[in-house]
């Protein structure tokens, strides 16, 4: 067990080292800079130079990199170049909203997608399957921001639901109201994908020999489905859910912008526009950490569930 966590920690460190180095240098290669972004295109070169010096950007780049690394090693993500606030503080204040969105979308996507996939597999080639497959094809061909626009036009506006911003978690009703549409927009696309994966997985398992054995024993169809199809089938769904979650965190970037939701995504987009190097670096590092941890959790969960990974 200790070895497992040690390995996990090592993997996290290695990934973070690679990712943070890459983002540090790549972002400095993008044209423009924080000073130009703040002062505008017409600012005098003099003013730009002064601001750059104030921001510490005139130091040799390897000195900056060293400073960044030593800070990072202490868990310090530095201060925003635009407002001077602590980057980790800003991220921590918006991260829950992004996670909330990704988790809600994951739940919607998996609930709808898995159910649909199972129904399609059980009624393979009959009307529920055909209808379900057409639906998921439509869902897959729409990008989530387009679904978001449709949802706003045809659901939020007629019903008078709020279409932007977030509400604090303590105001649960209002929080969920504002969560619903963005989560749906992302969840629908995720459900379409999930239903396809689930369907092909379940169709495969239904054709397996042990299912025939169960039927030959005289086991009820419902029980065959639960114990002999869904239970063995739930295992491969675990890593698929992990992948979906990671995709959803990425999707959140777009959807948060569409719904003007404060979150990691919109923070990152704004920081990128302002060339706020430290904030962009911080966001990427946090996202990477989340991804590595989710992967590890999925891995651990899979091991707990699959009897084949336990030795006799």
């Amino acid at each position, binding site marked *: 067990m200790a070895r497992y966590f040690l390995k996990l920690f090592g993997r996290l460190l290695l990934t973070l080292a690679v990712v943070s180095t890459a983002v540090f240098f790549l972002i400095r290669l993008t044209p423009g800079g924080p000073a130009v972004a703040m002062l505008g295109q017409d600012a005098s070169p003099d003013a730009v130079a002064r601001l750059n010096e104030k921001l510490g950007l005139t130091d040799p780049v390897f000195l900056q990199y060293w400073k960044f690394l030593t800070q990072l090693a202490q868990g310090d993500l530095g201060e925003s170049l635009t407002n001077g606030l602590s980057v980790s503080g800003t991220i921590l204040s918006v991260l829950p909203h992004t996670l909330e969105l990704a988790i809600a979308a994951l739940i919607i996507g998996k609930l709808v997608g898995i159910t649909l996939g199972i129904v399609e597999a059980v009624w393979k080639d009959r009307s529920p399957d055909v209808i379900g497959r057409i639906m998921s094809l439509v869902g897959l061909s729409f990008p989530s921001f387009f679904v978001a626009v449709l949802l706003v036009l045809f659901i939020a506006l007629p019903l008078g639901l709020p279409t932007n911003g977030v509400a604090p978690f303590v105001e649960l009703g209002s929080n969920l109201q504002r969560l619903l549409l963005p989560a749906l927009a992302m969840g629908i696309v995720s459900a379409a994908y999930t239903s396809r994966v689930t369907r092909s997985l379940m169709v495969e398992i239904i054709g397996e020999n042990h299912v025939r054995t169960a039927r030959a024993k*005289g086991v009820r169809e419902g029980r065959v489905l639960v114990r002999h199809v869904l239970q063995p089938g739930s295992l491969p769904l675990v890593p698929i859910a992990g992948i979906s979650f990671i995709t959803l965190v990425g999707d959140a970037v777009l959807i948060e912008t569409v719904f003007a939701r404060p979150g990691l995504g919109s923070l990152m987009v704004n920081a990128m526009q302002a060339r706020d190097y430290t904030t962009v670096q911080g966001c990427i590092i946090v996202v990477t950490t989340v991804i590595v941890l989710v992967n590890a959790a999925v891995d651990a969960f899979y091991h707990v569930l699959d*009897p084949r990974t336990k030795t006799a």
Partner: protein
Amino acid sequence: MTDVTETEIHGRPQTPASDGCLSVRNLTTVFTTRRGTVAAVTDVSFDLRAGETLGIVGESGSGKSVTAMSALGLIPQPPGKVVSGEIWVDGKNLLALDRRSLRAASGSDVAMIFQDPMTSLNPVHRIGAQIAEGILTHQRRPSKADREAARRRAVELLAAVGVPAPERRAQQYPHELSGGMRQRVMIAMAMSCDPKVLIADEPTTALDATIQAQIMRLLREVQQRTNVGIMLITHDIGLVAQNVDRVLVMYAGRVVEMGTVEEVLENPKHPYTVGLLRCTPSRLPSDSVRRRLTPIPGLPPNPTDLPPGCSFAPRCGLRGDRELCLLEQPELRPAPTDDHRSACHFLEEVTP
């Protein structure tokens, strides 16, 4: 569960053998595929008596498995469909039962073991639980005590099929057992409800020779203990010679010859059977060498497009240029006794 309402409506079959524990009458099963309708099994009739082993042999695709699966309602539908026929077990026509009654009969009246023991058990449940499930499935609302009893019975059954340390094995998952052990588990599971008929579809094909012999010995032991009728589907003439009382030879979905093992192997009355036996090194029932069926020259007919007369005609050495074989479907008839039958127009001319 004993749902017999259906049976009482349908009454007794017209011609089942009086001591038959399984009577198949005029079974016809087809598959509808994109390339046309496959006549997988056509007009197959036979009887299996209690305590007897009936061997079913024939080339790949001749309809052996479809015959067996039809009895348990395991034909995937679509594309498959049992078009007609009756399968009588214990006074019930399985093909006339509703889903619920057929389910009640599956496993308790007729049990089945399959070719591939490696994949025939559920990978995520313990062995003991899988055996117990077969028992509990046939009980109405099993109580806690019933569950406990089923669990104990599962261990007893494992012991009875020669699984060492049955208590411990019952707690293990299939991946922890070898192929031979898994086939023993399958047999234990099949015998858990004292079936009248055990269908064994190539039960030893996936196992190596020593294990094969052990499994066949086990099946014989089980049969002596329980008097179960066994339908043994196989490619292996050696297996047939040593383990079987009567033989059914299938070709292109039809029974072409049937009789006692001695009659069919020593005095075959159908050119196809002759061909089958000629392809094996020795055909004496006493010979202990393991032999495989090797195909006869030529290919089996396309099952979506069977010729009008005898299906074997294109490959038959006996036919010569006789028109009858192409025009008229030969029916099974005594060769020469009622016990030994062949579906050849010229069975009198067949020489081994």
